[in-house]
């Protein structure tokens, strides 16, 4: 069955251009809500969302929580420290206990790839992946694409360059899946030790030379060097990385004047991105954050609406008609 709206949002891999388009179009309308004097609509009144964060997060977590509150959903936050997870409870038990309290959505961030998929197969509640290991971070991918679409309109044929630790980056993976589906030309760039083998199979170009990678790019997505995921050393030093792959003022001269600079945050200023570039007028980094709330509102709204629809067995034709905006 070709469902336009799924029960869960686990990743952008395999999602159609139409589905991505529906989420982004819905997000356009939700963006305005955050500008209102009363930043709240009653759309998800009575729905319960649990934010289950097994890894630290400021932006994603605050963004999801604000999205939930602005839709009038009730939300509960659980983090690893201070929960029974610290006592050794399994993920499965934690999730099943939460579902026993009749929740509608679980937003999960976990260090292991596939954790959200495991929950999705187990629970009736909708599951939203807020980052699973080095696998995917679909809402980040969607908000990056939303920001690009806002600035560049059609992404077909646009060159987007992702720079940094591609191998360990879930942001890179979600961006690649989404952007390639929408017809963008994606180039990845970073030290060869950070480029996974066979990445070209995903439909991207690999370029280890920064200058060539950023030439004619319409946007750069500068990834954070994730020191916490670096179990072995993949480059000699941070200074060396900044020297070879850091985006700084001198290197802006290599770019098209219209090229946008994105960063998923948190930034290591002076490493992958210099102070002046991060605060410069090409950077759309804070706009990404603003858009993140709208995109997450759209995702939560569509998932809750989709779940509602699945429960429907019979559809009353007259109710259908009343719901149409045209006929009354």
């Amino acid at each position, binding site marked *: 069955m070709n469902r*336009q709206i799924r029960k869960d949002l686990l990743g952008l891999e395999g999602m159609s251009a139409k589905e991505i388009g529906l989420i982004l179009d819905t997000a356009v309308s939700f963006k305005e809500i955050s500008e209102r004097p*009363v930043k709240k*609509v009653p759309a998800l009144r009575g729905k319960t969302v649990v934010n289950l964060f097994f890894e630290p997060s400021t932006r994603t977590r605050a963004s999801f929580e604000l999205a939930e509150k602005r839709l009038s959903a009730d939300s509960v936050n659980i983090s690893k420290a201070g929960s029974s997870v610290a006592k050794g409870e399994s993920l499965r038990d934690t999730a099943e206990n939460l579902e026993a309290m009749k929740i509608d959505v679980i937003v999960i961030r976990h260090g292991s790839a596939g954790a959200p998929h495991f929950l999705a197969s187990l629970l009736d509640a909708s599951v939203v992946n807020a980052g699973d290991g080095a696998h995917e971070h679909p809402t980040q991918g969607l908000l990056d694409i939303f920001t690009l679409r806002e600035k560049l309109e059609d992404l077909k044929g646009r060159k987007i360059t992702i720079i940094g630790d591609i191998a360990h980056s879930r942001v890179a993976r979600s961006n690649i899946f989404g952007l390639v589906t929408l017809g963008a030309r994606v180039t990845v760039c970073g030290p060869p030790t950070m480029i996974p083998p066979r990445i070209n199979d995903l439909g991207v170009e690999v370029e280890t030379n920064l200058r060539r990678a950023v030439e004619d790019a319409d946007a750069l997505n500068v990834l954070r060097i994730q020191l916490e995921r670096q179990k072995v050393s993949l480059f000699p030093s941070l200074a060396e990385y900044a020297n070879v792959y850091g985006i700084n003022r001198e290197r802006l001269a290599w770019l098209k004047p219209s090229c946008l600079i994105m960063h998923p945050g948190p930034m290591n200023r002076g490493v992958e991105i210099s102070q002046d570039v991060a605060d410069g007028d090409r950077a759309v980094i804070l706009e990404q954050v603003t858009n993140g709330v709208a995109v997450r509102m759209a995702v939560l709204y569509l998932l809750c*609406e989709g779940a509602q*629809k699945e429960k*429907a067995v019979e559809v009353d*034709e007259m109710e259908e008609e009343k719901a149409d905006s045209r*006929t*009354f």
Partner: protein
Amino acid sequence: MGFEAKATIMDGDQIRRAVKRISHEIVERNGGVKKVVVVGIRRRGVHLAHRIAEYLERIEETKVPVGALDITLYRDDFQVTRNIQTRPVVGTTEIKEDITDKVIILVDDVLFTGRTVRAALDELIDFGRPKQIQLAVLVDRGHREFPIKADYVGRNVPTSDTELVEVRLTELDGRDEVILGEMRE
């Protein structure tokens, strides 16, 4: 299954006259348009709101602000099933004015159960505290489920509850008309 037209309730001329009359009534009742903001309910209400604002500007020779409301997120039938074809895509609300102390003319094409207007009132109030909200509709077809009454009505049309009223406007449908019909198997 489809919509089967039975009669034309209003043609283009009648719609034009009704909108013009409503505009004159708005001016008369409010002693001008000084504090008036016209807000249409998406989708057809917005086009009617623009038409009314245009008449108001012509009559009073002052600019009248127009806004648009998308009430999808304020609906009370989120829990009621709707299929993908009729499910309204969430549209954008545009209220650029500060509506506090203003007289809002809320505009919709058809007044039926009153549920859409209820949702619109809730949404409007989230934008500020208007001095008054008045309701203008092109067609009132009865069958109210809420205590809601229009202040300005283009035409009252008695209908049975299985009948449907379809408003077509040039901006969206290529021509102006109001059709009474029924859903047929």
